[in-house]
């Protein structure tokens, strides 16, 4: 067993950290306060190759491994959650879905420009009336000749108003149970009948973009169907295995941000004649953050290692996501407590950390869904079955091959 990162991983960490600290940290408060999407930061992530970090070079990516993806997400969310959200939807939920399930032609057409950061990608599963309960999905896709006609609405979609490509799920067989009647489609923004908008009044992630997609008789060519008809549920679940991985890694970064801010402030702030760092109850909160950071990191790195090996990691990834998101919310709350009244104002970052932490306890499986998943695996009510297409194991030679 080897717990050390490779020199390559260490350089990736430093590079992504430098970017986030130099180009995002000085401005993030301004965007967050104004509820203004920080578009330039996304453009820079695209230019630097971060949005294609773990996609093979021949598909326009950078050819790094899945652990690098996790490490990048940790560094990004340490500065702000919106950066990691971009990675979750663009890389985790969409691009890796195309890598796993796409035909060679679909990879060339859609994955290459996405990995290069030329076209941004989003994931349309959730609906106004269907979140964790995928069976309640109302969007439909009707086959007509060589096309499908899509109707319905998707809600709480990150990058809805900015993405160029959407991976959308809709019912092709309304009578079949959800795991058989849902199909996945790659839909381009330019397609007639697509409208999108932003959701306002969010608690957190205010420098990001969250919105809705409405589909009104959207004609999608059959060649844009991802996977087989009726395979959408399995595709969605496998995409979530990757999206949740980025969330677990990111939330771990958020815990680290809370820990760093709290340790710094605890040394600076004095009460009762000494720095608050010397008070035991402050130390207790800091110790818990340290504990949770280390657990979160071990959990996501194990999930990343399993992905590198090509081993299914649904419960391990779910555990990493469940643990780190809940722990990040607790860490942010304690970070405010340590900062006292100052932490309650936006003069410090910790109030933003708390607002940003909550969303991830809800999306891509609420904490309650993840608790159920864990129990169901232990009790034997749920088990992994082989998929028609598995996420490919990381093979450095294969990933770095030019063509």
């Amino acid at each position, binding site marked *: 067993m080897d717990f050390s990162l490779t020199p*390559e991983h260490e*350089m*990736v960490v430093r*590079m992504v950290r430098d970017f986030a600290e130099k180009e995002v940290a000085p401005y993030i408060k301004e965007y967050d306060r104004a509820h203004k999407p920080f578009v330039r930061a996304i453009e820079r992530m695209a230019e630097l190759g971060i949005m294609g970090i773990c996609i093979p070079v021949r598909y326009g990516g*950078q050819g*790094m491994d899945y652990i690098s993806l996790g490490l990048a997400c940790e560094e990004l969310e340490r500065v702000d959650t919106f950066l990691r959200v971009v990675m979750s939807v663009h890389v985790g939920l969409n691009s890796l879905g195309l890598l796993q399930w796409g035909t060679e032609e679909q990879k060339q057409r859609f994955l290459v420009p996405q990995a290069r950061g030329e076209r941004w990608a989003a994931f349309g599963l959730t609906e106004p009336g269907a979140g964790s309960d995928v069976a309640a999905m109302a969007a439909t896709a009707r086959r007509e000749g060589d096309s499908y006609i899509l109707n319905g609405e998707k809600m709480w979609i990150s990058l809805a108003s900015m993405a160029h490509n959407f991976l959308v799920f809709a019912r092709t067989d309304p009578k079949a149970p959800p795991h058989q009647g849902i199909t996945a489609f790659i839909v381009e923004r330019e397609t007639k009948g697509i409208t999108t908008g932003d959701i306002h009044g969010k608690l957190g992630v205010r420098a990001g973009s969250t919105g809705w997609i409405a589909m009104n008789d959207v004609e999608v060519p059959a060649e844009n169907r991802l996977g087989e008809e009726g395979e959408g549920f399995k595709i969605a679940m496998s995409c979530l295995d990757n999206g949740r991985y980025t969330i677990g890694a990111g939330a771990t970064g958020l815990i680290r941000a809370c820990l760093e801010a709290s340790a710094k402030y605890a040394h600076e702030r004095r009460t009762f004649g000494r720095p608050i760092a010397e008070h035991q109850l402050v130390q207790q909160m800091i110790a818990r953050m340290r504990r949770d950071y280390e657990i979160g990191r071990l959990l996501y790195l194990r999930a990343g290692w399993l992905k590198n090996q090509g081993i299914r990691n649904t419960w391990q990834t779910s555990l990493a996501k469940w643990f780190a998101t809940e722990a990040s919310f607790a860490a942010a709350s304690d970070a405010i407590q340590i900062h006292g009244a100052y932490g309650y104002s936006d003069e410090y970052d910790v109030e933003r950390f708390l607002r940003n932490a909550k969303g991830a306890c809800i999306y891509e499986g609420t904490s309650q869904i993840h608790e159920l998943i864990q129990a169901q695996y232990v009790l034997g009510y749920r088990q992994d079955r082989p998929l028609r297409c598995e996420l490919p194991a990381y093979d450095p030679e294969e990933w770095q091959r030019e063509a």
Partner: protein
Amino acid sequence: MHIVVCTKQTPDSAAKLTVDAAGNVSWGDSPIVINPWDEYAVEEALLIKERLGGNARVTVISMGPEAALEALKHAIAMGADEGIRIWDPIFEGSDTLATSYVLAKAIEKMGDVDLVLFGKSAIDSQTGQIPVEVAYRLGFSPLTYVIKIAELDPAGKTIIAERLLEQGRQVVKAPLPAVVGTIKGINEPRYPSFMGIRKATRAQYPVWSATDIGADPAKVGAAGSGVRWTRIFSPPTREGKAEIIQAETVEETVRILVDKLMAEKVI
């Protein structure tokens, strides 16, 4: 055109330096990184290379133990072609006089160098002496505090550089080969690319010893150094008071700031 960039490894700028009673300096477990000023020199070399197309190569050198690899790796990840570490146990304890001798001998060994680039200084020792010393030893044109390389003519063997001095900008023309000390503002250093990171972690970094560069042992290490350390201690902590000016508008904030600066006779 062959461009050499001299780099060194330093503790991260966020490191907390401590000095114990015996004068031993420590930066704890702070990571070792490329000297931040050197990133400007590497970037400038890469920009020149890009301008000249395929007619230039960039070699990065660093005198130092194993830890110096960090600086070389960073430069390769940014896009430099080759990294060479110059090290021999007898180099231990070198001051700037001895270090400049070693660097000059290594550059001399290469034989075909047209341009040597440096960062302004190293953030750990902050002497800024090495570029001029190396230029003197090699007989190259010394150009320090360079904010812009305005013209570079490899065929005519000339360089025109703008130096940022306290009195203003000075434009100078000098023959090549030259040693250029860059300063912040000359460019915006790029981040290492992912492809560069892979290249850097797989590259071979030859180590040149004192024998390899033909260095005289009497001129290196403590033996070749002119500086004698009488005492090493931490400077007293600077005490200061910070005041945050808050006003309704930016204009009002600026007005209050200017009033205060004038009252304090700062401006």
